[in-house]
């Protein structure tokens, strides 16, 4: 979830990329799961690689909670920060842009260019704020489908994503079973545990308790920065693990040799969380955070598609799956991945599963990990062979 992890560019970069915008639903608004309608809808998206002549080599990468469309490459020659999954997406990398055409879009409800609470409500001309309709993971995926359609792509070679991006992957595979050859849900779940919802609720309350939140109407009066920073701090704790925090900070003091006996940030971990919170405020919108966490909390694949049965939900699916969890991920622990694997097996689906030993908590899918790279590269290669995609010939 913490896409802010500063990626170290390894290997060759996809080079310059450009954020583009796709708008639809001007005449016919998107019907949301809540029953409300949203339109027009804009999706910010980026692509890397080349779509082949048959349009069979497209991979949709879904970002996590507060991520964006900038999956790999840089915006300009002197841009210091490559996209959030540059480790994984690029020429010769596991999601090899010499072979695959990669699409990544910002989800609806987001604030990185796609329609969300910061967008102007066509009815009033002012930002939607809290009048923005509640969106679901299903709604996000339906919007992505419109983007995929706009390329004339019938079937995606793969849909890949971690965390809330993994929820979108699962949703794609069950909602549009005939449009996905392979699905790779990483460090994710088919529904939030009470614990995950609890952390999100604390984060939301932090925002809503900030007087500047003003019931979501703050775009002219000043943003609830403190509430959003606290919300991020809560979230950030859930992305790490006891071990990684002990390793990074232990009880070391920050810029001091003695305790202050006041409420300064004595400990490194306090200082780090404050820094992460403040950094987040610069790039993210508080209302978006409320909507996106709610979408993640509402996600419940078995209720939506299986009347409470995960086995019934996956009976709709037909793609191949690669499910990956990480040993120290306590936000979406391995048992949740095993549950989905179990339901896939009961349906006779072709599934591979690996629990990767990693000490860094939920964030592990964003960090350099040879095992994960090998799994993705090998699995995608097999899908490619199975679909007989001559990616090299046709580009």
């Amino acid at each position, binding site marked *: 979830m913490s896409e802010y992890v500063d990626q170290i560019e390894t290997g060759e970069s996809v080079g310059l990329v450009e954020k583009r915008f796709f708008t639809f639903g001007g005449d016919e608004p998107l019907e949301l799961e809540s029953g409300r309608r949203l339109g027009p809808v804009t999706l910010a998206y980026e692509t890397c690689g080349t779509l082949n002549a048959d349009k069979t080599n497209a991979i949709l990468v879904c970002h996590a909670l507060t991520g964006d469309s900038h999956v790999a490459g840089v915006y300009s020659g002197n841009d210091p920060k490559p996209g959030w999954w540059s480790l994984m997406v690029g020429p010769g990398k596991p999601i090899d842009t010499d072979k695959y055409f990669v699409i990544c879009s910002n989800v609806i409800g987001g604030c990185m260019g796609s329609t969300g609470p910061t967008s102007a409500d066509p009815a009033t001309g002012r930002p939607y704020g809290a009048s923005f309709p509640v969106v679901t993971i299903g709604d996000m995926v339906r919007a992505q489908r419109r983007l995929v359609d706009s390329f004339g792509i019938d079937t995606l070679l793969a849909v890949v994503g971690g965390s809330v991006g993994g929820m979108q992957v699962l949703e794609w595979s069950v909602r549009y079973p005939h449009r996905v050859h392979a699905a790779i849900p990483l460090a994710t779940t088919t529904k939030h545990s009470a614990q995950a919802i609890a952390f999100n609720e604390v984060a939301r309350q932090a925002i809503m308790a900030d007087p500047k939140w003003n019931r979501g109407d703050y775009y002219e009066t000043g943003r609830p920065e403190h509430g959003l920073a606290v919300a991020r701090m809560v979230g950030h704790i859930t992305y790490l693990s006891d071990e990684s925090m002990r390793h990074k900070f232990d009880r070391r003091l920050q810029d001091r040799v003695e305790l202050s006996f006041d409420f300064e940030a004595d400990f490194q971990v306090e200082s780090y969380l404050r820094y992460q919170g403040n950094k987040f405020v610069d790039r993210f919108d508080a209302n978006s955070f409320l909507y996106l966490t709610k979408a993640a909390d509402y996600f419940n694949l078995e209720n939506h598609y299986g009347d409470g049965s995960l086995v019934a939900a996956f009976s709709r699916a037909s793609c*191949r799956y*690669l499910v990956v969890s990480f040993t120290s991920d306590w936000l979406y622990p391995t048992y949740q991945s*095993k549950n989905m*694997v*179990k339901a896939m*097996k*009961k349906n*006779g689906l*072709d*599934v*591979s*599963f*690996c*629990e*990767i*030993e990693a000490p860094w908590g939920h964030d592990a899918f964003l960090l350099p990990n040879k*095992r994960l790279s*090998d*799994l993705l*590269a*090998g*699995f995608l*290669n*097999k899908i490619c*062979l199975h679909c007989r995609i001559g990616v090299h010939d046709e580009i």
Partner: protein
Amino acid sequence: MRYDLQVIASWIEPGSRVLDLGCRTGSLLAHLADEKAIVGTGIEIDEDAAGRAIAKGLSVIHGDIYEEIEDYPDNAFDYVILSQALMQVLDPETLIREMLRVGRLGIVSFPNFTHYKNRFQMFFTGRAPMSKELPYEWYNTPNIRVIPIIDFRRFCKHLGVPIVKELALSTHHHDEQGKVITFLPNLFATFGVFMLGQAR
């Protein structure tokens, strides 16, 4: 590929559905996929081995065979293979019944404990036998069972499970070469390979 795996591979019908329990890095599954166009799945408890098998493009579940086999529907496979893992299985009776629930046929291979060299070692040295097939001391062995070929036959009888095919081999643990033993297999074979059918 190990000789016992070559024998197992020779028993598999092309195009069938195969589950390999304890598949390690998937060399049998890869061979069967290439040569016999099977649809295969493996289960492997070791992360490194499972990860390497998946990275080869095989379908493999990283997990414990007892837990993982439970999830498959009845008759999901044509063959369920347990090669050189029975010695480490806690409850062979349950596992073999599960194998024959999810699969039409089961294939089991194991080192023959009563090979004459083991018998000589015990007889002349008075110590627990160690061999290339069973290369552990009593205190560090992962093998919790010793399996003579004739006892395995009795075990199948006890389960009511018919032995469809059986071969006794003389080969070393990792050797690609070997030969079939027909004369006094319980004495001269290093490995037994059995194909099991549905219980009567």
